């Protein structure tokens, strides 16, 4: 004030006029400003509310920074702090800092993703390894029954809250799906979230496949799963190993169902009507192999089956392995299997490889020519 007075001797009337101008125009701008604020709020630019609890979460400087237009930067700083706390295995701090980053910038999906990851994977895994070294039963019980589940829940709740904030993004529903699939072993819920995630615009294609995988694990939902899996198998660009296995497993399920609920005659009737349905041939073959142990009839059925171009390639493997059961044809079958293995090794499951190994030893294939060198596992 002294500087003001000393500095210049100007008319106080002009100060009053200036204040009057500011007040009058201030009244004019306020509706425009609050309208703009509302629009910003609607567009998700005002998610963070600097209230009492926000003030308590942040340091003084961070709070001022967050108000002063550096909210995103402050969030990044807390992200780094969380990372540091993670390195120190200070899970309480990790949780606290993750809460700050997510509340400062709730529309940045990665914040939620990292928060869920730190809780449901990192903290969870830390306590699980701790439990392995614990001799104290009470402590063990506390870790396994209280701490570990609580971190799973924390991770899940971060992910679920994040999914609410980022409805456009595939990410958080995917994380929830991951938690249900990998931590809770709940394929039903996992498949639901993966499906949700796969519907987002930016979703990578593997999420839909993860959905199919989880769906294929759901007991009692085989019909639905088969629709999804066979569509992916026949129409998708990528035929992953999991997809092949799921396809084979689901088809085997339907084959078993057919075999159990139909007599051989009924199956034969069916195949006449539905010539293109290769599964029925498999059912017939299974029937012959099961009750009558008639390999040649089963081979006949497979011979019909593999004529169908729609039949997945693993039937050719089944067919060849079946032929190999007859020692007379073992060598011919091995030739077929060898070609198959060299061109599409993916169609061989672990059990198939064991069988292949057996065939190789039956035929006394020299070691350097063997397809399966040592262990069958791949």
């Amino acid at each position, binding site marked *: 004030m002294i*500087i*003001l007075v000393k*500095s*210049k*001797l*100007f*008319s106080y009337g*002009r*100060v009053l*006029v*200036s*204040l009057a*101008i*500011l*007040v009058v*125009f*201030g*009244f004019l*701008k*306020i509706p*425009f*400003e609050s309208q*703009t*604020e509302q*629009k*910003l709020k609607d*567009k*998700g*630019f005002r998610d963070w*509310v*600097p*209230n*009492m609890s926000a003030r308590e979460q942040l340091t003084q400087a961070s709070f*001022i920074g967050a*108000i*002063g*237009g*550096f*909210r*995103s*930067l402050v*969030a*990044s700083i807390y*992200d*780094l702090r969380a*990372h540091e706390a993670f390195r120190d295995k200070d899970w309480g701090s990790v949780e606290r800092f993750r809460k700050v980053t997510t509340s*400062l*910038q709730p*529309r*940045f*999906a*990665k914040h939620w993703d*990292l928060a869920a990851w730190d809780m449901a994977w990192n903290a969870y895994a830390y306590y699980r390894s701790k439990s392995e070294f614990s001799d104290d039963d009470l402590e063990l019980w506390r870790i396994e029954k209280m701490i570990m589940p609580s971190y799973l829940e924390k991770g899940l709740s971060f992910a679920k809250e994040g999914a609410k904030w980022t409805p456009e993004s595939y990410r958080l529903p995917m994380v929830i799906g991951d938690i249900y699939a990998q931590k809770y072993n709940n394929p039903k819920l996992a498949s639901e979230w993966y499906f949700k995630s796969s519907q987002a615009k*930016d979703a*990578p*294609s593997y999420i839909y496949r993860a959905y199919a995988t989880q769906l294929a694990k759901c007991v009692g939902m085989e019909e639905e799963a088969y629709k999804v899996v066979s569509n992916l198998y026949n129409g998708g*660009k*990528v035929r992953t190993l999991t997809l092949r296995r799921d396809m084979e497993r689901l088809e085997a399920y339907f084959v078993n169902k057919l075999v159990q609920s139909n007599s051989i005659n009924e199956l034969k009737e069916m195949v006449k009507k539905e010539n293109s349905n290769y599964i029925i041939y498999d059912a017939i073959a299974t029937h012959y192999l099961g009750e009558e142990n008639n390999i040649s009839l089963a081979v006949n059925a497979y011979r019909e089956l593999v004529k169908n171009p729609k039949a997945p390639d693993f039937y050719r493997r089944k067919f060849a392995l079946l032929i190999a059961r007859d020692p007379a044809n073992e060598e011919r079958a091995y030739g077929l299997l060898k070609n198959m293995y060299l061109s599409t090794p993916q169609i061989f499951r672990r059990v198939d490889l064991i069988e292949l190994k057996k065939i190789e030893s039956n035929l006394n294939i020299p070691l350097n020519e063997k397809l399966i060198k040592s262990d069958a596992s791949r």
Partner: protein
Amino acid sequence: MTVENNEPIYNELNSKFKLFSPSRVMAIAMNTFTQLVRMKVFYFLLIFSVLIIGANVLFLNFTFEQELKILQDVSFGAMTLFASIFSIVGTALLIPKDIEDRTLYSILTKPVPRFEYLIGKLLGILFLVAVSLVLMSILFFAVLFFRQHGILAEEINQMRGQPTAEQISSLKENIFAQGLRLELINGVVAVFLKAAVAAAIALVVSTFASSTLFTIIVSLVIYFIGHAQSMALDYYFPEGDMHGAFQRFIAGIVAIIFPNLQIFNVVDGIVSGQSVPMSLMFRLTGLTGFYLFIYSFVSWVLFAKKEL
């Protein structure tokens, strides 16, 4: 000789003199710009480069989302900081300095209306801020561009086996969605608009305070109030909570007199992937124009008859 002899001169003066001359304003603006440039303010670009390259190098162990976000946060943070400092300190440094050094005498004793001087100074500062922001943006965008391509290459490298074209394009889409995008320009514009209002605030303050330090401090206080005012309203007077009439009155006065600078903070949202509709950008630009006009006008009211 009689007094009538002055008439030709009088008439000549009146016809020659233009009430508002853009060329005079530009002369003052460009002079201000030149002055600041020759004060070597652009050395700050070195600091800026170090900051963003540092942000780039230091955080290599993080996910690409974090990496790209930190790069953007540091860049936008530095841009906001530099733009605001240039606006406030530049204005506070130059106008009181002109008064102190009496350089102003030689300018105002030319046929230059005082508001032209004020507008010229303001434009000069804004021009400097704009040029700095453009230079910083070029640096920032270039680093971001190279980083996102670098990240893409690294991520592909880390994939098991031969990634399919589909995988690569999906990854690319994911990375680039958080990398260089048009939306960032809106962020830079918003940073500029806020700095422009800050410069206009400093202009008003410098017309009644001749000391540089006083101008800077008062302007910074107003700048801070401008950021906190809308929040202070919520903070101290939550909705539905009835408070004393006096407190409400004070809060109202603050909201009326001070600009709401919080409105310009859209960078946080932009970094987290939101987009600002053009209509909102127009609103912000309009609001800035309004503030520039009012504050220029008020500073002229204060400055027009100031005894120098």
